[in-house]
């Protein structure tokens, strides 16, 4: 079904997750260190990375940054502690989502499916409005899932792209963090709004001329985010 790279140093946790995910139909390749994980990524393609943050040697944040440099592979963090600093640092390092250990296999599986949906073209939000959209210097091709700025394609990770598509689908309309969490991350319950904030920061860094004075994705204090008006 999909190729999952699991990077987790604890043997039993690794075995347990591999067993459960394999039963769900994924092909799981499990390694114990970040170095092994990066090596594996260079050798064989994966669809998604499940990454423990507490790793011996190269830590999870560094691994996360290196994977981001390689491409837009979705990353789901496993945080051993529900440590807020870890979560924020992991999201800033480029992770798409996170789960807190101990985690039930079906919860992790649901998150994996959600990020994979963002990558694949199987549920293109706003796809009904095919064709090119022009928002100032920004060109959004909803059919090809390509965003260009001044004619140059912008490299966006799947979650970042999905967030931008969601916001630009209704320009000028405010979307709350919870709405975005449900639409983009498919979090059916009260999700962590920091996922949205971190992702917005990453998108702004890629499309805005000045991240501290954003034009495309604007913050509406007390409510959420809004695309434009330009």
């Amino acid at each position: 079904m999909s190729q999952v790279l699991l990077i987790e140093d604890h043997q039993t946790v690794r075995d347990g997750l591999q067993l459960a995910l394999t039963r769900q139909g994924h092909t799981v390749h499990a390694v114990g260190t970040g170095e092994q994980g990066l090596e594996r990524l260079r050798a064989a393609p994966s669809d998604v990375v499940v990454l423990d943050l507490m790793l011996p040697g190269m830590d999870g944040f560094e691994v996360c940054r290196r994977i981001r440099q390689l491409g837009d592979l979705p990353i789901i963090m496993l945080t051993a502690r529900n440590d807020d600093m870890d979560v924020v640092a992991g999201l800033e390092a480029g992770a798409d989502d996170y789960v807190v250990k101990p985690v039930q296999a079906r919860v992790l599986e649901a998150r994996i499916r959600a990020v994979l949906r963002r990558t694949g073209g199987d549920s293109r939000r706003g796809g009904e409005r095919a064709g090119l959209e022009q928002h100032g210097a920004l060109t959004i091709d909803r059919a090809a899932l390509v965003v260009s700025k001044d004619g140059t394609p912008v490299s966006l990770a799947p979650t970042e792209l999905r967030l931008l598509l969601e916001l630009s689908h209704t320009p000028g309309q405010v979307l709350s963090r919870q709405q975005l969490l449900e639409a983009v991350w498919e979090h059916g319950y009260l999700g962590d709004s920091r996922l949205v904030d971190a992702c917005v920061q990453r998108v702004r860094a890629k499309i805005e001329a000045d991240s501290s004075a954003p034009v495309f994705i604007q913050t509406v204090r007390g409510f959420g985010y809004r695309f434009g008006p330009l």
Partner: protein
Amino acid sequence: MTFWRSVAAQASSLRVRLLLAFALLGVTTTAVVASGSYFQARTVILQQAQDAAVMSLTDQLTKVYPIAQLPPTQNDLDLLAQRLSDREGFAVVIYRDMRAQGSQTPAPLSPELRAEVGDGQIAWQRVSQDGRPWLLIGTQLRLERPDGTAHPSGLEVYSVRDLVPEQQSIDQLATRAWWTGGLSLLLAVLLALLSARGVLRPVRDLGRAARRLGEGDLSTRLTVRGVDELADVARTFNDTAGTLERQVGELRRMESDARRFVADVSHELRTPLAAMTAVTDVLDEEAEHLPGDAGRAARLVSQETQNLTHLVNDLIEISRFDSGTARLALDDVDVGAAVTATLRIRGWTDRVRADLPPAVVARLDPRRLDVIVANLVGNAFRHGAEPVTVRVSADPDWVTIEVADQGPGLDPEVLPHVFDRFYKADTARTRSEGSGLGLAISWENARLHRHGERRGALVAGNAPGGGAVFTLRLPRETTDTGGAR
């Protein structure tokens, strides 16, 4: 009323008492010494003046002796008076109705004096006339008969002396005595103030130190000065404070060790739990195909693994409050919408009567609000009776969320303990109903929200009409992101 009470309080203060005692001592001593020496000196001065006057009169009388035959003429008397008068005084000579005087000054001769002199005695008297003090000495000249006996001649001689110089000396003495008294009083007051300071400063220091100790500053110590009783008190205070500090330190260390132990244990439990939790779904799926006991055992392990996970997660959450590492992730939240979401996610929307005014926006941590509301409503379902109501209200400073049920309410004995950790109101309650930490965590979550003096709170009570009511109050503007307790 208040004024007099404050005066009374002042008078009873140690300082005033010391001051009064010293002043009284000073004044008494000075009064005794000064008045004693004044009166003594006055007597001496007057006595000397008197003796000198008597001597000089006797002396002069010897010079004018013997006198001419009796009765004398007026001329004789005048002459006699002239001769007996000198710089220091004048004389008055009287014979029956005749009278001669050596000065124009009227002599203040009293009838008593005249009577005494008339009896043949030497008499004296001090009188004051027109504000001037006078010394009067009188005697009667005696005549010697041919047979050698003497008999009074009826010729009275009075010496009238002005006592102004002596009076001046005495006045000077009195002035000096007043000055001495005043100075010694001043000295006494100064000494009293100094000694009051000496005594009161250590007492005040002691009071201040005791207050600081009471406020929790266990490192408070006094500087021990000298070897008196106050120094003893200071030393005892220091010893006591030292013991207290050691014991409290020991207790705190033990408490923090215990807390760290709980945190460490919880973290250590996470790894095996993570492995077990990962495969609970596998167990659940397989249990359907396993025969009899094996299937039941698999389901039991799966269920209890999940309960254990909840417990460990709650323990870690609690230990984060205890260690002060819990942080708020603040957001501007529409409280009504947040409560609606909490209810909807858990499928409670149809079971809860919600009174949610629109557009109550508060700055708070939505995840923690969700934890609190879910816990309160969940508790209401478990221990109370439906219908459960959730009511949101707000004023400019606070947002209040009330969760009420229609059950029997909380036992008054239970009420003070509902937020205690692992407190079980009903001993028959099984653990599967919760970790026993839910309300404790909710309480800590509420308190984590604070804005200056305003601090979030969660209180439990009973409605007048029956049923338990939990009231959550959060500041609308939270600035503190948690941490220090």
